[in-house]
C-alpha cells in the first residue's frame, strides 16, 4: 500500500528472479549434459553479476557483497548424491581460477560435506564422495599472497576483507579437507587422496600436523595404502618433527612380494631409498632390509630386478658393515639352513647378518641378460660411487622390451637342429601335454 508502483515492480521482478534461480538449480540435475552445462553457465553468470551489483545494500564496511547463497546452490548442483558428475565438474574448473570464487566454493563444500554426512550417518556415499573429490582435488592454491590477483568482483574496501588474505584461504582449505577425510572413504578414493596428499594438500595447510591422525591410520591399514601413506608421513617426519615409534619396523613389515608388482613401486622405492640413506642406521637393520628385499626379488619381474639390485648395491656402499652378506671368508663351510628368518617381524631378531645373499647369486642365472649382469656385480668388490637409481625407478616392462627389440644385431645365430614339426623337438614338453587339434 505504501509502495510505489516502481517499488512494486521491482519486488515482483525480484521474486521472478528467485524463481528462475530455483528452476535453474533443478535443471542442474537434468539428464542431458548440455542442459546441465547451460544452467551451470547461466548460474555462474548470475553469480558474477550479483557480485558486481549486489542485491542488498552494503550496510557497513566490513561485509562482503559476494552472493554466497547462490554459489551454494551451484555447488549443491555440482555434487549430486547418486550420480557421477565429473564431466560437469571439469566444466566448472575454469571458474576456480578466480581467487574469490575458489574461496567461497571451498567454504560451500565444507558446509555441504557437513550437511550431507550428518544426514547419512556414516553410510558411505561413493558417488557423492567421488564428486567432492573430483571437485576439490584439482584446486590449485596460490603460493604467495601476491599471486592472488584474479578476482571476479572487487569491492572498495577489498584489502581489509578476509577474501584477499592467503591465510584465510589456507584455513578454509584445511578445514574442507579435514571435514572430507573425517569420514570413511572407499578404498579407491583413499588411494587417490594419498597419491595427491603430499604435493597438493600438505603444502597448503596451515597446520600440516593435523593430518597426522589420518596418515597414521592409513599407514596401519597395510598393503598399497600403507605404501602411499608413507609419502605424507615422510613429509611430516622430515619437516614437521613428527615422532613415529617403530617406524623402521613398520617399514620392514611393508615389504611383501607385491611391492615389486604394484603401480606405486617407483614411489615406494624412492622413499625407501631416502629412509635408508642415513648412515646412522644399525647394520642389523639394513642387513635385514637387504635380505628381505632380495628374498622377495625371487618372485619379481625383470624391470623390478633391474632396479632393486643397484638399490641393494647402494645399501652395501652406505653400510659397509653389511658386506658380510656377500663376503664371509671365515664362515662355516657348510650350512644346512639359511639362518635368516623370513617370518620374523622384528628386524633385529631376523639373524640377517649371519646369512649370505644366495638369492642374488641365484639371480645371476636369470634369463634376462641385464639382470644376470647386474647380479654378477656383487661377486666383485663394489666401487665407491653409488649408482643412480632414479632413472631405473620408473622402468616399465614395455620399455625393457622396446630397448631389446631396437638393439641392432650383427648376426643372428640360428637353431641348427632340423625342425620336424611344431612339437617335433627331442623331449618336447608340449608333445606330452598338448595335441595339435
Amino acid at each position, binding site marked *: 500500500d505504501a509502495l510505489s508502483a516502481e517499488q512494486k515492480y521491482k519486488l515482483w521482478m525480484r521474486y521472478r528472479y528467485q524463481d528462475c534461480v530455483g528452476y535453474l538449480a533443478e535443471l542442474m540435475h537434468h539428464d542431458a549434459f548440455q542442459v546441465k552445462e547451460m544452467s551451470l553457465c547461466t548460474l555462474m553468470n548470475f553469480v558474477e553479476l550479483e557480485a558486481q551489483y549486489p542485491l542488498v545494500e552494503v550496510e557497513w564496511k566490513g561485509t562482503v557483497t559476494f552472493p554466497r547463497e547462490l554459489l551454494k546452490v551451484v555447488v549443491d548442483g555440482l555434487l549430486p548424491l547418486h550420480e557421477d558428475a565429473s564431466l560437469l565438474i571439469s566444466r566448472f574448473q575454469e571458474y576456480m581460477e578466480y581467487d574469490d570464487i575458489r574461496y567461497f566454493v571451498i567454504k560451500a563444500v565444507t558446509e555441504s560435506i557437513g550437511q550431507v554426512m550428518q544426514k547419512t550417518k556414516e553410510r558411505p556415499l561413493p558417488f557423492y564422495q567421488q564428486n567432492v573429490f573430483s571437485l576439490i582435488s584439482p584446486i590449485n592454491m596460490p603460493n604467495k599472497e601476491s599471486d592472488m590477483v584474479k578476482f571476479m568482483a572487487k569491492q572498495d574496501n577489498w584489502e581489509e576483507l578476509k577474501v584477499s588474505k592467503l591465510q584465510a584461504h589456507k584455513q578454509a582449505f584445511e578445514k574442507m579437507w579435514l571435514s572430507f577425510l573425517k569420514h570413511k572413504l572407499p578404498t579407491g578414493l583413499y588411494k587417490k587422496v594419498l597419491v595427491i596428499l603430499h604435493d597438493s594438500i600438505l603444502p597448503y595447510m596451515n597446520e600440516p600436523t593435523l593430518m597426522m591422525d589420518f596418515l597414521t591410520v592409513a599407514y596401519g591399514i597395510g598393503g598399497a595404502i600403507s605404501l602411499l601413506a608413507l609419502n605424507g608421513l615422510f613429509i611430516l617426519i622430515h619437516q614437521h618433527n613428527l615422532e613415529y615409534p617403530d617406524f623402521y619396523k613398520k617399514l620392514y613389515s611393508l615389504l*611383501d612380494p*607385491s611391492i615389486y*608388482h604394484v603401480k606405486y613401486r617407483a614411489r615406494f622405492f624412492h622413499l625407501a631409498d631416502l629412509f635408508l640413506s642415513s648412515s646412522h642406521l644399525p647394520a642389523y637393520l639394513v642387513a635385514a632390509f637387504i635380505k628381505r628385499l632380495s628374498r622377495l626379488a*625371487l*618372485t619379481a*619381474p625383470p624391470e623390478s630386478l633391474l632396479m632393486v639390485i643397484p638399490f641393494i648395491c647402494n645399501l652395501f656402499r652406505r653400510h659397509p658393515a653389511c658386506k658380510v*652378506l*656377500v*663376503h*664371509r*671368508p671365515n664362515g*662355516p663351510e*657348510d*650350512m*644346512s*639352513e*639359511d639362518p635368516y628368518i623370513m617370518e620374523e617381524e622384528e628386524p633385529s631378531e631376523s639373524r640377517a647378518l649371519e646369512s*649370505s*645373499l*644366495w*638369492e642374488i*647369486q*641365484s*639371480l645371476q*642365472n*636369470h*634369463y*634376462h*641378460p641385464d639382470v*644376470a649382469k647386474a647380479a654378477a656385480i*656383487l*661377486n*666383485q*668388490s663394489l666401487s665407491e660411487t653409488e649408482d643412480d637409481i632414479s632413472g631405473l625407478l620408473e622402468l616399465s*616392462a*614395455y620399455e625393457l*622390451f*622396446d630397448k*631389446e*627389440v631396437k638393439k641392432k*644385431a650383427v*648376426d*643372428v*645365430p*640360428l*637353431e*641348427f637342429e*632340423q*625342425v620336424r*614339426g*611344431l612339437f*617335433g*623337438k627331442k623331449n618336447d*614338453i*608340449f608333445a606330452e*601335454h*598338448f*595335441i*595339435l*587339434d
Partner: protein
Amino acid sequence: SNPFEVKVNRQKFNILGRKTKNDVGLPGVSRSKAIRKRTQTLLKEYKERGKTNVFKDKRFGEYDTKISPEEKMIRRFALERQQNYGKKNIYNLNEDEELTHYGQSLAEIEKLNDIVDSDSDTEEKGTLSAELTAAHFGGGGGLLRKKASSGQQDEEEEKPKSRKELIEEMIAKSKQEKQERQNRRESALELTEKLDNDWKEIHTLIARKPPKSERKDKEVEKPKPDEYDMIVRELGFEMKAKPSERMKTEEELAKEEQARLQKLEADRLRRMRGIDEDANKKKPSHVSADDLADGFILDKDDRRLLSYKDGKINLENEDEEEKDNEEEDGEEGGKEEDESEEESEEESANEDEEDGAADSHSDLESDVESEEEAAGNKERKKHKTNENESHNVKELDPELKAPTSELPYTFAVPESFETFKSLLAGRTIEQQLTILERIQKCNHPSLAVGNKAKLEKLVGFLLEYIGELATLDSPELKAIDKLVLPLYNLCQMFPEAASDSIKFILRDAAHDMEEVIEVKGRATFPGLDTLIYLKITSLLFPTSDFWHPVVTPAFIYMSQLLTKCRITTLQDVIKGLFICCLFLEYVSFSRRFVPELISFLVGVLHISLPKKQGQGYTVVHPFTPAGKNLELLLVCDKQDLESWQKQHLPLSTVTRLKEANRTEINHMRLSCIALCFDLIKKSAVLYESLPSFHEIMRPVRILLTQHVPVNEYPEKLQEWYHSALKELETKEKHYTPLICEKKKPVPLKQYTPKVVKVLEFGRKQAGSKKEQERKQLIQRHKRELKGAIREIRKDNQFLARTQLSEIMERDSARKRKVKELLGSLATQEGEWKAMKRKKGK
C-alpha cells in the same frame, strides 16, 4: 712511437712455446682512445639525458652501406628531380636543350673518359689491333677502315654510333676471332690424330709388304680354316678331366656330420655363457668355409651327398633338385626317370585330393586358379627356352604331361600377402608345401639378383599366413605343423629377414598389450597365433644364448604375459600354462632362472583350491589371494574325479572352448592340474643347482604338502603329484657362505714423474672433450665478466669526471659573476662616497 709512452710488461720466466700477447702496452694511446670513444657515446647520452626529441637524419641512404656512393648520389638526384617535377621553374632558362657535335651530345663525350682495357686481350701481346688504334687515334689509312667495318658501313654512316658502342662491338669481334682461331687449331689437331691412326694401320702392311697378287690370294683363302685343324684345336682346348676329391664313404660322412654338430654345440655353449661375444663375431658359426656368401647354405641337406650303396648310386633324396640336373650329366638318366615318376605319382595324388577339395571351395578360388594355371602354362613355355629342368622331365615322359599340369613348376615370388594367400588358397597342405618349395627353388638367390629380397619377403608372408591359420575359428594346426618346415629352411637362408619379421610381430603384440594396459589398466592374454609365434621362435632360434636379438625380447614379452594378464577363464589358465611350457622349453638347455614361471605355477595351484584356506604362501600379481576368479580349477564332482583320464589338451580350446558339458570341463581342469604338477617337477629338476632353490620352491612345497587335497584326486593324478613332490623333497639343503672374488691389489704409489703427451701448449690437457669445453666456457665467462666490470667502472669514472668539471665550471662562472657584481657595487659605492665627499666639501 715515443719510448716514454711504452710500458713493458716484464715476464718473470721465459716459457718456451708460449705466445705472449700483452708484453708491450701503450697506456697513453689506449687511454686516449677510450676517452674518445666515451665522449662519442657515453658523453652524448649523458648530455641528452634530459631531452626527449630526437634528431633524425632523413638523407637518403646515409647510413646504408650496401649502396655504393655513386648509386646513392644517383638515387638522391632522382629523388630531387621527382620532388621538383611538375613545379614550374620561375626562370625561363634553356636548360633542356643539348649541345651536340656530329650529332653526339657533347656532355656525354666529355663524360666518357674511360679507356678500353687493352690488357684483357692477351692474344695480342702488347700489339694493338687495328680497330683499337682506329678508335683511339682516329685510324690510319682507308684500307684498314674498310676492313674493320665492311658490311655495316652504310648504316654506320647514316647513324653514327656512340663511342662506347663502338668499343663494345670491337671487343666482341676480337673475341669471336679468338674463338675461330681456337676452333681451327682443334680441327687441325684432330686431323693429325686421324692421320696418325691411319698411318699405324697401314704401317703393319708396309712392314712386310708382299707382292700385290699374293696379297689378294691370301685374303680369299683366309676365311676357310681346315676342318682337321679345327678338330685338333677343339680337342686341345677341351676341358680335361681334373682329379677331384675322393668320394667319401658313409662312415666318413657320418663323422663329418658329427664333427659339425659338435662344433655347433660348442658355439651354442659359448653364446649361452655370453663370453667373448665380440671375439667370434667375424665368423658366424654355421657358415661353412666354402660358403660363397650367396645365401646358399650347405649345412642344410639340399646338397645331395653322393654316396654308394651296393655298387649303385645311393639316391636318398627322392625329391631331387632340378638344378642338379644341369650339373650332373647323362649318367643320371635313370635317376631322372625315377624322379619324374615319383613326381607324377605325387601329382596324381594331389589331383585326387584336389578334386575332393575343389568341390568345397570351388566358389572361392575357381577363377583365381584357372587364371593362375594359365599364367603358369605360359610361364612354363617361356621357361623352356632358358631353363630346361622342367622341360627335361616332360620330354622324357610325354604321357605324364596331363597330370603335371595341375601344379605349375615355376612360381614367381608373390609381391603381396594377398597374392601369396591366393596362391595357397584351396590347396591341400602337401600342395602348399610343394608350391613353397618350388617358389624357393625357382627364385634361388644364386639365380638372379633380385631374388634374395623377394624370398626375404616370403618369410614375412609365410609367418603372416601361419598367424592367419591360427586365428581361424577352428585353427588349422596340422597345416601349421607342416608349414614350419619351409619356414625353417627359409630362416636358415635369410636369418636377418626372419629375425626382423618375428621381431616385428613381437613388437606389435607387445605394443598392443601396452596400449590395453594404458587404457584399461590390465591386459588379457593374446590369441593362439601369438602363442604359436612364440613356439616357432624357439624352433628357429637357439633359446639358450645369453643374449639373442629375437629370443631375449620374446623372453621379456612372455614374462609380461605371465605377470600382467588377468586370469578370468579356464582358457586363460591353459594359455598361461602354455607359456609356462614355453618358458621351460626356452631355458631347458641354459637352465636360466625364470621367477615368473614359479610364481605362475603357485598361482595355478592357488586357484585349484577352495576359497579361504589358511595361507602360508603369497601369490603375486595376476592372482589375488581373495576376490573374483578364484576356484577356476576346483573340481568337486566325485564322479568326474573318478572318470578322469590323463588327456592331451587340444590347442584349439585356447581360441574356442567347445560347448562341453561339465564333466569334460572338469576333466580339462584336472588335466591342467596334472600339467602343473609336471611343470613343477620339471622346473625342480631344472633349478636344483640354484643356491636358493628351497627358497624359490618354498611356496610350491607349502601348497603341495599342506593345501592340495591329494587324496581326493584320482590315482593317476596322485602319481603326478607324488613325482613332483619327490623332486622337491629329495634335494638336500646346502649353503656355502658367499665370498667375493679377490680384487687386484692396488699398486703402490710410484714417484716417477707422470709423463703426459702435450698436444697443444697453453691449453689444459686433463679431462674429456666435454669437460674441456666446459672449462673453457667458464674461463671465458670469467674473463668477460671481469672486462665488463672494468668497463663499467671506467664509465663511472668518466661520468664523475665530466660531472665534476661541470660543477667546477658552474662554480667558477658564479664566482666570476659575484666578483663582477661586487666590483660594480664597489665602484658604485666609491662613486657615491666620492659624491658625498664632494658635497661635504
